[in-house]
């Protein structure tokens, strides 16, 4: 036990001297994920704001292929992109400080699979729902998102093993991967009148959302209500209003 404590302390002091920089943009849930991981690992870092409408030299040289944020710079090492890959890297360089991925291979595989599902289906469905004008497609997307939330509810029950988070007693990988969308989910409810996570359909997930939202680590990384509202207004500003949609104040 004494050895483990020493190990942790050494790693925390390493974390403080990490020479870490994060290139991000306002309101991006993928950037929020990395901020979350850095917070949990107690890593000090410099945050560099990127304007995606006017991409910087730094972004274009560090992530030439995809030109996306987040990008992580660790000392003189090669810059790293893709939020899920960055989180696993941070977990591996400081394995004893707030472990993020579960420890057994089967739970790790389930978590990685669900993260893949979130990024390739669930999140794109939410984005498309916000932007599409075709009401038939909107209905279809609503159905898919609801089914997805039911599946996440089942996954939560299985992986949390009765505790507050996907990671158990502590915030873990899926808490970060899904939790970064809590702001979007909240505003979905307000603007579209559609509860992606619903107290009746997804009771455990709804409770999880509340626990995560009120956690001290979350409050420090999730963008403010104002940023979310501005983001949605900006998105909706590009679209002609639909008759049945409330206009945000």
């Amino acid at each position, binding site marked *: 036990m004494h050895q483990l404590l020493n190990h942790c302390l050494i790693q925390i002091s390493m974390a403080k001297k990490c020479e870490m920089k994060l290139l991000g943009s306002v309101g991006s849930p993928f950037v929020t994920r990395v901020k979350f991981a850095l917070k949990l690992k107690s890593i000090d870092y410099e945050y560099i704001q990127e304007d995606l409408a006017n991409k910087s030299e730094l972004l274009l040289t560090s992530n030439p*292929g995809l030109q996306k944020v987040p990008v992580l710079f660790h000392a003189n090492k090669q810059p790293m992109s893709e939020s899920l890959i960055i989180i696993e890297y941070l977990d591996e360089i400081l394995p004893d400080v707030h472990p993020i991925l579960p420890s057994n291979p089967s739970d790790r595989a389930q978590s990685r*699979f669900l993260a*893949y599902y979130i990024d390739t289906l669930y999140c794109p469905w939410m984005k498309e729902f916000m932007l599409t004008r075709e009401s038939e497609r909107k209905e279809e997307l609503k159905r898919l998102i609801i089914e997805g939330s039911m599946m996440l509810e089942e996954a939560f029950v299985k992986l949390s093993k009765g505790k507050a988070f996907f990671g158990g007693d502590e915030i873990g990988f899926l808490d970060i991967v899904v939790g970064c969308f809590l702001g979007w989910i909240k505003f979905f409810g307000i603007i579209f009148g559609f509860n992606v996570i619903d107290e009746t359909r997804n009771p455990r997930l709804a409770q999880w959302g509340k626990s995560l939202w009120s956690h001290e680590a979350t409050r420090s990384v999730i963008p403010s209500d104002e940023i979310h509202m501005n983001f949605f207004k900006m998105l909706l500003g590009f679209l002609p209003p639909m008759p049945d949609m409330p206009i945000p104040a």
Partner: protein
Amino acid sequence: MEKVKLFATWSSPFVKRIVWALKLKNVEYEIIYEDLANKSPELLKYNPIHKKVPVLVHNEIAICESLVILEYIDETWNDVCPLLPKDPLDKAKERFWAKFGDEQVLPSFFGYVMKQGKDQEESKETTLAHLKRVEQLLSEKKFLSGESFGFLDLAFGWLAENSRPLEVITGLKLLDEDSFPNLCTWKDKFLEIPAIKESWPDQETLIAKYQEIRESKGK
């Protein structure tokens, strides 16, 4: 004894990389071939979300998505033939390039060879640009994973395995030695690895299958 099942189709590049990994790790497993036009209740039970192959079932726990399965195999059977490197940065690089391979290179490559006429011409530039990036990865290395083969080689193994069959059916020299000397060398080395060389299907069967698909799309 541990029970390992793999739901597969014989031609899927995503399945193939799992077959190679299991062989390299000396894992005994049962393979179940699926007819994707008529999926088995078992497949739908184990992969209800995507309903796709490969699915690895180990002691009744189902793992889906081929790159996730590869990491699971590497972590579970970790005493033989390690696939991913130990260094976190090297691991991150391999994960990044494997993802790039699956999301960009593979779709554009197969799209390019399966199309005909004008459509094919249009996707040529993108495919060549992607291949050039992979070529650069091999500039100072024997294999994509370094001195010896590993995770990233398995992830790009589809390119080694399929390039000659597709050349035969399209008549196009896709990986020519002048433009892609590193890739050509890598391809030959990869196909000589015993576990890869001994895996079915053979090149002739692949050629026949792709010819069939190309003709049905041309109609």
